[in-house]
């Protein structure tokens, strides 16, 4: 089969994807998990009910989440430039990826934490636990298995989003598939990249499932 890309290009793209997903997942989680916790504890009936915080945070997350990633990517270029001093390349793609994934993670974390039985929280309150203790000793351990699946879903979502990172020269497997496989009709590249993405997603999902099962002990 005829193809124009080299193995170096392929491995370079792989590395870029891993870097983009890794960094944006790390920082996205760093922002998203606390935001998810804040959503749960400030909601009406939460352990630290706060109408003001909840009524601002909740719609803001919805607004960011309703933007298609490709629009978000372009729209926040000034912000990206301010953060990483460039608007092109892999690091320039990571900033919008974080902005994209953090609210997504916040929502997923919120859902996971809401699954924790209210009875557990009542027991915590009856024991005289502080808000921090409620989160640390009750909420997070009880939701741990579910949180692992949450992060799995977030990671897979990120892999999809990185395909659009090509727009700002971010590179990555998805970009390779679009610019060579799709735009240049290079079927070989298309098949290889798609297979790689399938393996990626499958691997991450299976790993997530195994870890979650371990955490839930069943």
């Amino acid at each position, binding site marked *: 089969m005829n193809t124009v890309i080299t193995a170096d290009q392929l491995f370079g793209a792989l590395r870029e994807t891993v870097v983009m997903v890794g960094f944006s997942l790390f920082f996205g989680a760093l922002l998203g998990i606390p935001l998810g916790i804040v959503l749960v504890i400030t909601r009406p009936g939460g352990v630290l009910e706060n109408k003001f915080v909840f009524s601002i945070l909740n719609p803001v997350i919805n607004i960011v989440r309703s933007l298609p990633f490709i629009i978000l990517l372009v729209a926040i270029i000034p912000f990206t430039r301010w953060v990483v001093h460039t608007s092109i390349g892999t690091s320039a793609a990571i900033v919008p990826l974080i902005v994209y994934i953090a609210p997504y993670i916040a929502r997923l974390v919120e859902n996971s934490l809401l699954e924790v*039985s209210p*009875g*557990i929280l*009542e*027991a915590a*309150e*009856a*024991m*005289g*636990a*502080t808000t921090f*203790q409620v989160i640390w*000793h*009750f909420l997070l*351990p*009880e939701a*741990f*298995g579910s949180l692992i699946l949450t992060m799995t879903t977030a990671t897979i979502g990120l892999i999809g989003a990185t395909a659009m990172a090509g727009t700002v020269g971010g590179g990555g497997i998805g970009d390779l598939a679009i610019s060579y496989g799709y735009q240049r009709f290079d079927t070989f590249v298309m098949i290889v990249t798609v297979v790689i993405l399938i393996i990626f997603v499958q691997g991450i999902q299976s790993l997530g499932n195994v870890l979650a099962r371990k*955490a*839930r*002990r*069943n």
Partner: protein
Amino acid sequence: MIELRDVHKSFERKGQSIQALKGVSLRAEKGDIYGVIGYSGAGKSTLIRLVNYLERPTSGQVFVDGEPLDQYSPSELRQVKKRIGMIFQHFNLLESKTVFDNIAIPLVLLKKGKEEIRERVTELLKFTGLSDKAGSYPKELSGGQKQRVGIARALASNPSILLCDEATSALDPQTTSSILELLKRINEEYNITIMIITHEMGVIQQICNKVAVMEQGLIIEQGNVLEVFGNPRHATTQSFVQTVIHNSVPQSVIHTLKAESGRRLFRLKFVGGAASEPVINNLIRNHEVNVNILFANMTEIQNTTLGTMILQMNGDNGTIDQAASYLLSQGVEITEVDKV
């Protein structure tokens, strides 16, 4: 010591105000096992949640060990809560932690040292008969075992009060009995005041010394269990009492009665000593009356026997009156009834 003084509690639900408690007062002394019984919706769950301030009263005051709870700051209140253990209908154990770690939680919250925690938890595991389950997860336990873990957890911080919110309602009768035995042991060995919310009269009968009967946000009857059981005044109390003490005459007996005439019926109540004396035997020996026992029942409450009997006496009126006053003189409560 737990005291509620004229406590009201209302909730806002969809713009509507619901009055869960409409002026409730009660007092449980140190060492009491205080039962609160009522049908669902009576307000008893709200009531028990007031004692550790999971709910705050709309008006009125709650006292724990003589101190009103409304005087405390949030952080002081958290300290007070550590002196009040609580167990729940659905146990509320952490599924992600072992039995050992579940029991250790209150101590971890108190920032106790590892060694101290290990010692205390081991002691509690032994006390609740769970020593071999330390490494198990709640999922692997039976309902009764889960409640034992709940009890051990509630006792970890050495509370002076234990609140039981429908603690046996999810358990089968035999398990219920063993959990109640454990609660009684806790009450006796550690002198912990226990408050129990339940809809099962059997629970009150087996371990409580005081009882309050609730209906529609009010306490309709309260006092010593023996008094309330022996003389239930309110219809709701009577129907609760009937679930453990059968004091109604079977239908078949009522039918045969209708056919007879020239009879007088008496309802007798024996409490304590009167129940162990051979009064009926003496009655028949010393009086010229024919005695027919239509119904008899004995129940033990708080180590005291409570007996109910319905007698039919035939004879001339004067002799029957004498027989009745003889029973009265023997400490038997007797009332003449025209129908059973």
